[in-house]
């Protein structure tokens, strides 16, 4: 455990009774005394506070001073339309490689004179090097080490944050603005990883504990660990990088076509021009051979990551594999996502997962598994 890093909220987690585990090189809270199930339910019913400071924060500052130049530069690395992203708005994006695989997923916000990116903890050093290698001619790449990242998620997040600054209430889904919270300038977006309304807050390290404590003072806010974070995002149908998407999965296979705007596809004004465009645009035109789908097991036994999937209850070669699976406290049953051959990918298709040597029935199901509650 000696080389594990700690976020600035480490002492607060310990004081709150968290069970700390290694995660992406950090000591992170997997659960608090409330427990995974109740933490999940609390987030859906009220509001949950998550420390996500292990994630990478980086600024792309255009040398020209024109944020459009940073947007054009970033578009050479992502199959996503960044140029029209208005000031104060945020968008989901993917880094791709030459083979058309996904090297990370990220959020990109236009903050006026620069772009602000939030990337996954396990990928951040590779992402920073990637940005430096490809974009340093046009942009200064400023890795942010002096800010924490806190997510406040759930239907009561609005009330809790608006009490610290009423401007929070006015924000819409995927807005990204600066505001003062608990005496410090924070960068706040109305977004998250739970399928609920909520916020992600980049706060100066020196103020982060104070801000978290101020939010936890609300009766409606409980601290939530990585365990519930995983079941919340799974019910919301959101990908976990490294499980559900990775360098071997393309955006089309992953069902993330919505993240590749028409303008970047064949026939669009800024079509292609990103790594792996040949494969990815080819899959838009001709389809992919497999697809990420939602899976609802018929029984109560969870089909976890690695469970092999079959078309029949007996014999035959696997048609795919589960990439994430757990028990969903809100849907009150097991749920999974995974990749299946394209002819088994339609909603309602009956498939079988092999659990402890037995083929168990399951159904391909649409995602999210329950309606999301974003403030559009």
């Amino acid at each position, binding site marked *: 455990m000696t080389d594990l890093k700690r976020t600035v909220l480490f002492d607060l987690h310990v004081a709150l009774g968290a069970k700390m585990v290694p995660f992406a090189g950090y000591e992170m809270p997997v659960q608090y005394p409330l427990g*995974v*199930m109740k933490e999940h339910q609390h987030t859906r019913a009220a509001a949950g506070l998550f420390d996500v400071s292990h994630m990478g924060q980086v600024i792309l500052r255009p040398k020209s001073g024109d944020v459009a130049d940073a947007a054009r530069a970033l578009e050479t690395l992502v199959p996503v339309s960044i140029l029209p992203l208005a000031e104060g708005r945020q968008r989901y994006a993917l880094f791709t490689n030459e083979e058309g695989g996904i090297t990370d997923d990220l959020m990109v916000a236009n903050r006026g004179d620069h772009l602000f990116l939030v990337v996954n903890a396990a990928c951040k050093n590779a992402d920073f090097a990637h940005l430096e290698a490809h974009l340093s001619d046009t942009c200064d790449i400023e890795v942010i080490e002096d800010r924490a990242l806190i997510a406040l998620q759930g239907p009561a997040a609005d009330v809790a944050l608006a009490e610290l600054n009423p401007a929070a209430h006015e924000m819409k889904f995927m807005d990204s603005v600066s505001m003062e919270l608990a005496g410090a300038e924070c960068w706040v977006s109305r977004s998250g990883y739970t399928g609920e309304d909520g916020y992600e807050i980049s706060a100066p390290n020196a103020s982060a504990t104070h801000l978290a404590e101020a939010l936890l003072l609300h009766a409606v806010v409980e601290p939530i660990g990585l365990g519930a974070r995983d079941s919340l995002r799974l019910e919301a149908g959101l990908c976990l990088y490294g499980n559900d998407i990775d360098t071997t999965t393309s955006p089309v296979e992953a069902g993330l076509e919505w993240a590749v705007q028409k303008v970047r596809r064949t026939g669009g004004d800024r079509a292609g021009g990103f790594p792996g465009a040949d494969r990815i645009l080819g899959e838009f035109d001709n389809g992919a051979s497999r697809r990420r789908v939602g899976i609802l097991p018929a029984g109560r*036994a969870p089909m976890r990551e690695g469970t092999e999937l079959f078309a029949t209850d007996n014999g035959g070669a696997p048609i795919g594999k589960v990439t994430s699976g757990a028990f969903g406290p809100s849907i009150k049953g097991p749920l999974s996502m995974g990749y299946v051959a394209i002819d088994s990918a339609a909603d309602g298709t009956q498939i079988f997962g092999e659990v*402890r040597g037995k083929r168990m029935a399951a159904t391909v199901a649409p995602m999210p598994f329950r309606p999301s509650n974003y403030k559009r």
Partner: protein
Amino acid sequence: MKFTEEHEWLRVEDDVVVVGITEHASTQLGDIVFVELPDVGTTVAKDDEVVVIESVKAASDILAPIDGEIVEVNEALVDNPTKVNEDATGDGWMFKLKVEDRSAMDEMMSEAEYNKFIA
């Protein structure tokens, strides 16, 4: 009541031995979401895998603590697996064994010894 290093408890009730997991084990496992029970009538030997439980974290096998025959299982756990967390040594029992030779239980830990074991 007797306890094993596998964090099971055994309690003699009339002519059968009732088996479950300890409160300590249920706390460590976290919220239990699924319990798969053996068929009544199955003959089991010590260390056979007899029950599968899944918590929000992972799957675990429960081993037979002693030779015997399964004479009853706690069907209520199938629909209500959280009973294991709520009342591990009561309503959260898992199965009842008919045991010919209970002498192996003499070697198992008492409650005080088990508490020392997990301390």
